[in-house]
């Protein structure tokens, strides 16, 4: 095992079924068991803190980070309200949230903490924290997913979070809440016979899980645009979870991957995967994407001011 401040990365689905009714479908039950295994891995990792990035929490004004010390509410999911209510009380880390915001600003991002009683924490974060940190042993921050952010901004966001983690050096587990393929069944279906919505979604999910099983996180990150096109309902501009996960964890393939479960949840691809820093696994990388350090805002195709080496136009070019 490689010693790293970010000692664990975990992908979990945010759907409420494994929390509220794991008994209703064998696959949902296996996801629930996988959550329990992932929790054990966190306990054994020496993690002192959790960072959650939830694709279920969209933001518009830059990046929002939850900083209310002890958010408490009874949550009901917008879609699956008939499954029941979810009472919760969590323990946030306001000081670390503030430092994460400062780190974001230092890299050119617009970010802020949110600290308000009754703030509607999203279903995905609630499910993840209820199952992975049920006794609130570890203080947490939750990071929103900006609906307009593309790769450069998300990579820089990940690096900013990493800066904040490295500042105090506390061991940190990163939890990313996202489905793989996200196409839900849009009509009633036989709960005992849940399945991935389409064969194509399933094939892409399996391809990504093959990579993750080999610890090839950066390769998965680099393939995110393709995955977005092939297996995602385009509710947002891009598929960001592996961009930020790889960015926080170090942008390499040096991990031991552990696919704990992969099951359909109402048609979506639900997977629980853990990644542990390792010395030598799959070292081959496909570096074909930019690796930005600072965020300078959206650049339009016709923005010449930021183009290198254009030089002045010829005064008389004959045209």
């Amino acid at each position: 095992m490689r010693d790293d401040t970010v000692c664990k990365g975990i992908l979990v689905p945010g759907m409420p079924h494994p929390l509220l009714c794991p008994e209703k479908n064998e696959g949902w039950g296996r996801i629930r068991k996988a959550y329990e295994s992932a929790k054990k891995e966190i306990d054994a990792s020496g993690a002192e803190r959790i960072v959650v990035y939830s694709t279920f929490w969209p933001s518009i004004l830059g990046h929002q980070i939850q900083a209310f010390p002890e958010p408490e509410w009874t949550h009901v999911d917008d879609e699956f309200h008939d499954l029941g209510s979810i009472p919760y009380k969590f323990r946030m880390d306001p000081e670390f949230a503030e430092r994460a915001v400062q780190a974001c600003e230092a890299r050119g991002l617009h970010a802020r903490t949110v600290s308000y009683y009754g703030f509607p924490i999203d279903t995905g974060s609630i499910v993840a924290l209820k199952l992975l940190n049920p006794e609130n042993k570890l203080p947490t921050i939750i990071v929103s997913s900006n609906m307009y952010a593309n790769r450069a901004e998300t990579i820089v966001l990940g690096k900013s979070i990493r800066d904040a983690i490295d500042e105090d050096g506390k061991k940190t587990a990163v939890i990313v809440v996202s489905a793989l393929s996200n196409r839900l069944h849009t009509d009633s279906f036989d709960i005992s016979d849940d399945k991935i919505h389409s064969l194509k979604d399933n094939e892409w999910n399996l391809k990504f899980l093959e990579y993750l099983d080999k610890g090839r996180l950066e390769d998965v990150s680099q393939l995110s645009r393709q995955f977005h096109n092939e297996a995602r309902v385009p509710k947002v501009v891009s598929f960001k979870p592996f961009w930020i996960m790889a960015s926080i964890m170090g942008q390499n393939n040096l991990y031991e991957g552990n696919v704990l479960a992969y099951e359909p949840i109402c048609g979506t691809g639900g997977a629980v995967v853990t990644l542990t820093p390792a010395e030598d696994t799959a070292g081959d990388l496909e570096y074909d994407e930019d690796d930005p350090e600072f965020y300078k805002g959206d650049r339009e195709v016709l923005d010449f001011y930021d183009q290198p080496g254009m030089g002045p136009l010829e005064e008389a070019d004959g045209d």
Partner: protein
Amino acid sequence: MSKGEIVMGALAPHPPHLVYAENPPQNDATSEGGWEELRWGYERLRNSMSDIDFDVIIVHTPHWQTFSGTHLLGVDSFKSLSVDPVFPNLFRYNYDLKVDVELSRMIHDNAIEAGLSMKMMENPDFRIDYGTVTSCHLTNPSWNKPIVCISSHRSKFYFNAEVMQANMVKLGDATRKAIEKSGKKAVLLSSNSLSHRHFTVEPEVPEDMSKEHVTNHHQYLWDMKMINLMREGKTKEMIDLMPDFTEQTIAETEAGSLTWLISALGFPSYEAVVHAYGTVIGTGNAIVGWDPRKAKV
């Protein structure tokens, strides 16, 4: 029992900024004002309703997003705190509202008959979305009438804008038939902005109006195109253009609210009254009223 009817339809967008700017006692955040043109537009809408007797407000909301069909509130009353997940600094509103469950069920049943996938929301812990609260507050600040709240079925994302439109035309039709059967007088609200590209930063003082403008000119041109069609009573043409408008301006019409409203009103050919147009954090917002009495003149 006499036949029920729609007594007013309105495009009633829900930027929480407008509630924030008004400083009502229900909202925890306080402001120095802002977005007056839109707030005065809502005032004009309310004035236009002052001589109208109605029993219920029916709101179609983009911020209750459902993917397996359309859902309706099915609990008699709700009392809680609504906090906007995007603008929590502006909107933390204590609501206390009643629901017309009987009419909700009638819409639900009619829509199922029309072939739509529908579901009643019967969990008493459910939190009402800030879009519903904002549109209803600005239209009827006294909250003295029950509401029916209809979710936004996101079929635009799972299929395309045409499928969304087809579903919402059916839902609007089913809504009108349910109202007629109920014997009630209803005000219908389409709770959405038009063009919907936001700024991604907020001024230090959110109500600093020197920073407010439409995000880009083409959004403005599209908004005017749609508003002029409303003013001219060309609602069928407007619905025909809706998929392109929605695509080109990332418009919040993607939620289906406006298509639902126009269908429920029977694609009015009389002129709509535009009470205001203005921007909120770059998005285009129009407050528009359709008074069916005009059709009878």
